[in-house]
């Protein structure tokens, strides 16, 4: 193909829980070259095998090298290509140098040890919601505060600074702001962080993430500060949006909701299916990579220098599981791509899993009649943020 197809408008959806109108149809026939809203042409790869191939082949790199990011609005990229500590845009050994020490902070056993604390935060927030009475907004009552508190504690940010951290992190990555705005917010956050970092250095502890980075790694101060910003931002908005979206899907599919309520102990397996399904149905803009060599993907030759957008529509590929377009909470866990794949797969996946499992299970067991106070299609959704989700979820019980 020589002419790139024009990408459908990414924020237009027929149903708030489904992907951009026309997107899945436009990319269903194998890699398709598309003209994105910012003027960049990129291949969209949406098969399961193709997605895994691109995300795990080192010839596809994340480093965006001075080129515009595939953002939905035009304008200069917010981050410099060589922003220190930008773990999501660095490859090979340099990536492993940042990634491996952090993985230690997110080990499965560490995340499991956090579960009682996560349960306590969920319980306390649902207590408050119940005491205030219906209707309540699930987003502000539970979805947002849960991951924000957990990541702040995991980093080791003292309680008196947590609010400023959360507000600033949302300002930084929440909206596609200008570069000047970014620099102003990052500077503010760096000022708060400096004394915290100094304190951890004096104490010599490594039992929280900041302590681990300060005392157990060779990260520079610039890297460390940017990693803190990135973890805060990545750690709360995504999880919050998904907890909300999972709940909305269950409101819309009562027979699936009954499966969860019938066997809440299996919530861990069900969260994997909800993740597969939700991410797959959102489709749209995906994970961006750039080819450094000519590589064939799904029968199409992608040339060195070409951009590739891996669409997580791949989660709905029948090659992954039968009836892949359907939500089936009786399904066993499959290797879905909801957290990505390859060396950049989500660092916080095991934390997000624990939060989603405990949050969802507790909500539906404690409030067995929880229901939307307005129709799901009439709630307001945020298209101004980098990750998509419901702005508020009014519920009764």
């Amino acid at each position, binding site marked *: 193909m020589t002419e790139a197809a024009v990408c459908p408008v990414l924020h237009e959806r027929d149903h708030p829980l489904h992907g951009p109108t026309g997107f899945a149809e436009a990319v269903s026939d194998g890699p398709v070259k598309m003209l994105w809203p910012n003027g960049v042409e990129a291949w969209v790869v949406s098969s399961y095998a193709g997605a895994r191939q691109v995300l795990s082949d080192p010839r596809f790199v994340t480093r965006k090298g001075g080129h515009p990011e595939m953002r939905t609005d035009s304008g200069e990229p917010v981050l410099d290509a060589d922003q220190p500590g930008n773990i999501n845009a660095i490859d090979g050994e340099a990536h492993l140098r940042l*990634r491996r020490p952090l993985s230690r902070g997110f080990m499965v056993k560490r995340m499991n040890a956090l579960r009682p604390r996560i349960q306590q935060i969920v319980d306390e927030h649902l207590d408050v919601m119940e005491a205030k009475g219906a209707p309540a907004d699930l987003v502000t009552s539970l979805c947002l505060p849960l991951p924000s508190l957990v990541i702040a504690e995991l980093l080791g940010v003292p309680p008196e600074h947590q609010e400023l951290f959360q507000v600033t992190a949302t300002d930084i990555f929440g909206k596609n702001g200008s570069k000047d705005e970014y620099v102003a917010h990052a500077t503010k956050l760096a000022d708060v962080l400096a004394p915290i970092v100094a304190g951890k250095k004096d104490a010599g502890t490594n039992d929280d993430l900041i302590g681990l980075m300060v005392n157990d790694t060779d990260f520079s101060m610039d890297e460390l500060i940017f990693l803190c910003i990135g973890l805060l931002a990545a750690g709360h908005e995504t999880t919050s949006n998904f907890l909300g979206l999972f709940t909305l899907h269950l409101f819309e599919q009562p027979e699936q909701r009954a499966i969860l309520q019938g066997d809440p102990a299996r919530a861990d397996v069900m969260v994997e299916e909800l993740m597969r399904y939700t991410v797959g149905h959102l489709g749209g803009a995906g994970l961006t990579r750039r080819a450094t060599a000519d590589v064939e993907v799904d029968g199409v030759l992608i040339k060195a220098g070409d951009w590739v957008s891996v669409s997580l529509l791949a989660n709905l590929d029948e090659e992954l599981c039968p009836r892949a377009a359907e939500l089936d909470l009786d399904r066993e866990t499959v290797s879905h791509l909801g957290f990505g794949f390859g060396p950049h797969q989500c660092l916080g996946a095991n934390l997000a899993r624990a939060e989603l499992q405990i949050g969802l299970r507790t909500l539906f067991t404690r409030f067995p009649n929880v229901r939307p106070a307005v129709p799901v299609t009439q709630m307001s959704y945020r298209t101004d943020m980098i990750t998509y989700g419901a702005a508020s979820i009014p519920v009764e019980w």
Partner: protein
Amino acid sequence: MTVRIDRTRCIGSGQCVLAAPDVFDQSDDDGLGFVMIAEPPADLLPGVRDAVDRCPAQAVGLEE
């Protein structure tokens, strides 16, 4: 059948531990995965195959 983890590829994501907790663990020293039972009995093999499939760094191998 022998299970291995290639430590030069491992990123410490812990997916193998989720797939087959009786066979894999993560090291307290560096967070990377390690094999606890190199020659697992047949009933643990489905979990091991799942770990091979799920490992994002393609670091887990099962030599049949």
